[in-house]
């Protein structure tokens, strides 16, 4: 059963109840029942359909990219060209242009990040899945923490721990008096706000996108079945769901890109000493 189907049964349940009206989808959307549950070392793992979608999306990404890279030659096939263009976009546009001359070694990480987020985002409009694993906070959080660890590690490695933390706390060129304000803000920003916003931005976009789609889809279904004059508004709600799907497509690409480009920017700050 899909989550929409869940919601639908909820709505129909409400419909059968004579006093009920439209029931908006709740956060329960993101907590489907576990298909399989187990516990290791006291940690509970529950494999829900969202986790299955997560694995399927990741596997699809791997298969797709492996296919594009298979038999890669100087003169690319159409499939190879697609994978290659995606990699070039990250490699040249971010690793080389954003991070700088030292950026190329980060291209594989950035490209992996981009495609991982992109394919998982895409699940939000993929038929029958229609929910992105990135709308579960755990996934963006994992990615943001990995990025956080990476840029701090690179910063310490490239600039030395003392220099890195000193530059983070006391940005060069700031008047001493302003440091009372700047230092806490800077420290908070580099070590807390950056990873948090990185994770929340992606999560919230996918979360809200899913909610919007569900609201309009359920709205259309409800209006069709309400049995009074409101039926005329059903196509409107359906049209909105359609428009929102295309909007979601834009968000899917945009958020994958933004996450990757911000990662590149943070890495740039770590590789290049502050001026």
């Amino acid at each position, binding site marked *: 059963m899909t989550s929409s189907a869940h919601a639908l049964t909820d709505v129909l349940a409400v419909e059968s109840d004579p006093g009920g009206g439209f029931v908006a989808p*709740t956060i*329960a959307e993101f907590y489907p029942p576990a298909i399989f549950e187990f516990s290791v070392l006291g940690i509970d793992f*529950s494999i829900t359909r969202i986790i299955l979608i997560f694995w399927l999306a990741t596997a699809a990404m791997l298969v797709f990219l492996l296919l594009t890279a298979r038999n890669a030659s100087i003169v690319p096939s159409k499939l190879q060209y697609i994978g290659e263009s995606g*990699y070039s976009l990250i490699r040249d546009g971010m690793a080389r242009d954003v991070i700088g001359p030292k950026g190329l070694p980060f291209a594989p990480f950035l490209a992996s990040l981009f495609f991982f987020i992109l394919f998982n985002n895409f699940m939000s409009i993929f038929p029958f899945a229609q929910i992105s694993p990135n709308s579960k906070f755990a996934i963006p959080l994992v*990615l943001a923490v*990995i990025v956080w660890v990476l840029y701090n590690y690179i910063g310490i490695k490239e600039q030395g721990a003392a220099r890195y933390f000193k530059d983070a706390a006391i940005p060069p060129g700031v008047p001493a008096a302003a440091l009372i304000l700047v230092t806490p803000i800077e420290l908070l920003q580099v070590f807390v706000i950056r990873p948090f916003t990185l994770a929340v931005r992606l999560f919230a976009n996918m979360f809200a996108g899913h909610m919007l789609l569900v609201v309009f889809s359920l709205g259309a279904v409800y209006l069709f079945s309400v049995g009074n004059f409101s039926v005329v508004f059903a196509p409107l709600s359906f049209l909105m769901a359609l428009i929102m799907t295309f909007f979601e497509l834009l968000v899917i690409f945009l958020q994958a890109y933004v996450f990757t480009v911000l990662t590149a920017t943070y890495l740039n700050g770590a590789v290049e000493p502050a001026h």
Partner: protein
Amino acid sequence: MNTLAAESANPLLPPVGEIIIGTITFAIAFFVLARFVWPRFEQVFRARREAIEGGIERAEAMQAEAKAALERYQAQLAEARTEAAQIRDQARAEGQQILEELRAQAQQESARIVARGEEQLAANRQQVVNELRGQIGALAVDLAGRVVGESLEDSARRSGTVDRFLDQLDGMSAGASPNGRGGATGSSVYVQGDR
């Protein structure tokens, strides 16, 4: 259905299990991509760059070769031109030489012809003179004998007289024009013979 579980859940506090699943999944994805996909693309980019650079180098080499060939050709052309000019000059000089040689030869020939003509003329004249000498001698003796009325038996004396006379004649004509030519003042006999 599971609204009770959902209501108690904070979406910003994910369960640890999900975090672990997410970490492992991303790690696997990253390692597969970093091992099997991105290096292939890097390899292709490198090969492509090398192919392009190789192509440029080849084109440069070909251009240099073409330039060298053109220069060689132009040099050959210039050489051929000078050679042609040299040949022309030589031919002209040779022609001039041949012309001069021919002229000299013609002059020589004409001089030779003239000389031969003169020789022949001189020989003819000598012959005529010799003939005339005999005839004039006989005629003169005959005439003198008739005028004197006596026969001069003594041939030795006679020939001596005649010879003396002729020598006198000769001496006269040699005195007038030694080469026997164009002498307007010579004896009438001699002048007639010359004609």
